[in-house]
């Protein structure tokens, strides 16, 4: 059953059609990778799904609810978590407090003034930090973290509202290879154990081919191809336009054969 239904999404910047009539669906517990060359419209697509930009036309339905026109904070309350391409965390708080803040918001307590925030939901936050393996860094200030740790922290924050859908914009960008694998392994586990649906963009084809259930290829704002890993890899249009034919593709073949 389709959990997320995107239909005819379009957005132009000036004369450029950044996203042009994009439609796709995402099932419960599915890990869908959105790939495409730079400038294909991946991030623009993400921003429209999350209410940061408003599409010129089209609709995004989550479990029957229209998301177009809603603000990011309203979309979050419908159970959508998000991680950013360039990490966005609360730098003046500790690792644990970042997660606590999300938990407080989930409990609708951001206007609470009658108790301290320092120890609110600390245990639950620690549990989430356990999942991403950062319990040991709970009381470190966020601004001293390594970039890979920030990316993982973003995932813990995104999990605080028990999301039904996770939107991850280049979750492993800037990470070293082993870290990438462990983060995506973690995400795949979440999908399997919790039935979370995940839509992610990624440039690293190792990550994409290893974990995603299905692929969606964007090029110049349009859907170029869609299907399983094998189908997309076999698609001549993808070979030609996205993978550029020739050497790039060949090297990937050898990597993943």
């Amino acid at each position, binding site marked *: 059953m389709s959990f997320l239904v995107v239909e005819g999404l379009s957005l132009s910047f000036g004369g450029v059609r950044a996203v042009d009539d994009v439609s796709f669906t995402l099932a419960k517990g599915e890990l869908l990778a959105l790939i495409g060359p730079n400038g294909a419209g991946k991030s623009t697509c993400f921003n429209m799904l*999350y209410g940061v930009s408003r599409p010129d036309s089209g609709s995004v339905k989550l479990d029957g609810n229209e998301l177009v026109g809603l603000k990011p*904070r309203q979309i979050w309350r419908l159970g959508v978590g998000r991680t950013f391409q360039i990490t*966005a965390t*609360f*730098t003046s708080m500790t690792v644990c407090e970042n997660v606590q*803040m999300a938990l407080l918001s989930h409990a609708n307590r951001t206007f609470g003034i009658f108790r301290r925030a320092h120890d609110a939901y600390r245990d639950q936050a620690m549990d989430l930090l356990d999942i991403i393996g950062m319990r040991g860094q709970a009381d470190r200030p966020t601004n001293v973290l390594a970039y890979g740790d920030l990316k993982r922290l973003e995932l813990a924050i995104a999990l*605080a509202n028990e999301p039904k859908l996770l939107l991850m914009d280049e979750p492993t960008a800037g990470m070293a290879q082993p870290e990438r694998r462990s983060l995506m392994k973690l995400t795949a586990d979440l999908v399997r154990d919790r039935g979370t649906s995940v839509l992610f963009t990624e440039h690293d084809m190792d990550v994409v081919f290893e974990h995603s259930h299905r692929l969606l290829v964007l090029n110049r704002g349009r859907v170029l191809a869609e299907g399983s890993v094998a189908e997309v890899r076999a698609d001549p249009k993808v070979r030609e336009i996205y993978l550029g034919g020739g050497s790039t593709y060949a090297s990937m073949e050898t990597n993943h054969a």
Partner: protein
Amino acid sequence: MGFFVAQLLTGMANAGALFLVASGLSIIFGVTRVVNFAHGSFYMLGAYIAYTLMSHLPGAIGFWSAIVLTGIAVGLIGLLVEIVVLKPIYRAPELYQLVATFGVILVIQDAVRYVWGPEDLIGPRAPGFGGVVSIFGQSVPTYDLVLIALSLVVLAALWALFNKTRIGVLIRAATQDREMVGALGVNQTLLFSAVFFLGSFLAGIGGAAQLPKGGADLTMDLNIITAVFVVVVIGGMGSIFGAFMASVLISELQVFGVQLLPQSTLVLMFVVMAIILVVRPQGLFGRPDAAVYQGNSAMVPKPLKPLGLAGKLVGAAILAFLAFIPFYGDNFLVFLFSDIIIFCLFAASLHFILGIGGMASFGHAAYYGGGAYVAALLVQYLQTPMELAIVLAPLGAGFLALIIGWFCVRLSGVYFAMLTLAFAQVVWSVVVQWTSLTGGTDGILNIWPSDWASDPSVFYYVVLVVGAGGIIALRAMAHTPFGYALRGTRDSSLRAEAIGIHVRRVQLLAFAFAGAMAGLAGALFVFAKGSIFPTELAISRSFDALIMVFFGGVQSLGGPIAGASVFTLLQDWLSDFTYWQLLLGVAIIAVVILSPRGITGLLETTGRIGDRFRTATGSNAEVAGKEAR
């Protein structure tokens, strides 16, 4: 018809000096992102230097060369200020540079008073342009036409500079993206200095050119700076043509406003600015991307921690010390410490939105003075008892902040700052001009505490209990989920919004709460002094609060307390000297340069240097030991 044209020309002439000063400020801001509050002081210096030069250089040639020489002299002074004061702190958070320019204002004030004396000076007539001409039957001073021509010549010259010369193109490029200009290999240090020279040169010419029309006096600096900011904001930060159009708009508005609505000329200018900022935040000719006021991410505050035992003991010791003041001090000391407590609360309330919320309000005096006026009016017209007035004043001020904040939280950075300033000026001008209600500049007198608290020592305890209570409430608020959410919106509004935090609502409520606490401080002030005047709402009071917060350190909850205490004591101690403003200004600049994180930052740094010194000597000893072996 004739009358209309004459008025129009008067407005255009008034716009001349305003445009010269505003264009200089706009250029400086565009490239360096320094909001130079001392720009009005350069204008004032221009008038005084021109006075001296014109009285020594004879004839028409002397007059005109005096204007140019004044521009060069002021340009060099501006350059000096840039090199000595601003260069060391370009890397500090941008708003911090403001405080340094406040210091410069004070220094230049007293320097001018020392050199030229306190009396107003009347400027010489311009040779050959001393008379009037008749236009449609109305006489118009010839010099007005000269000023109009001058502003057009400068506009054309600036246009040529920016479009035809390499440095001009670089300045325009840097206004749009200074990082890129730096990456392309342009010497930024030199560019910044050049821009400062040019901006100050224009301010100096402006001061010199208006000397025959308006003379020179010591209030010129602050009088023009508000109008200049209004012009720059309306025209669009960094836009020369915008500055020109806005100067004309504002000047004409004032000239015709006097005819139509003599009671509300002051209000008019700021209402126009507020409307433009709400509708078009980047100004009429500004680009939204050109003036985004990014905070400096290099200085991230440390996470908050609940006060430990040591902190609680220090707090208790301070309170105990304050509680004993009436026992071992005379009335003078009681009044002094009462002032300190009130300013601590005022500064702490500003710190709540500025330090914790990242919203730099330039008009916080509106709520401080607003609370004071609410209390005074309640007593004056409704014979409200003191106790009730102290409760209602923060509610009134908080309500005012809620209304003003609703407009302001839509903007951020320097535009937020300017809009809060504009609204504060609206409040101030309403109080000044609504004489029948507020008494105007005569203020409201005889607002004394209730009988039981009429003894200064007893009222001191009222101030201590209410003031300390307010400060503790502000501190406690920072530790609540609401306070955390507010910090979250400052750290990353993107992330805050992405985890369901209603950023604007959090900011608005914080703004209102800070306004209410400022109002509480204002209510205490009015009963402590027994009277209230519009100066408590004025821009200089807002500046005081900003200085206290930055002086103490933005990034620590103790900062505003330290800043307000030191600032008030310093002011009290220095006021015995004739040129105390100069000393205070130098002190402010020194603190800013030595410790960009304020007094509390300075304490931390000295602590850390001590540690480093110990470890360093320790390792030296080890090395020495090894060598010995």
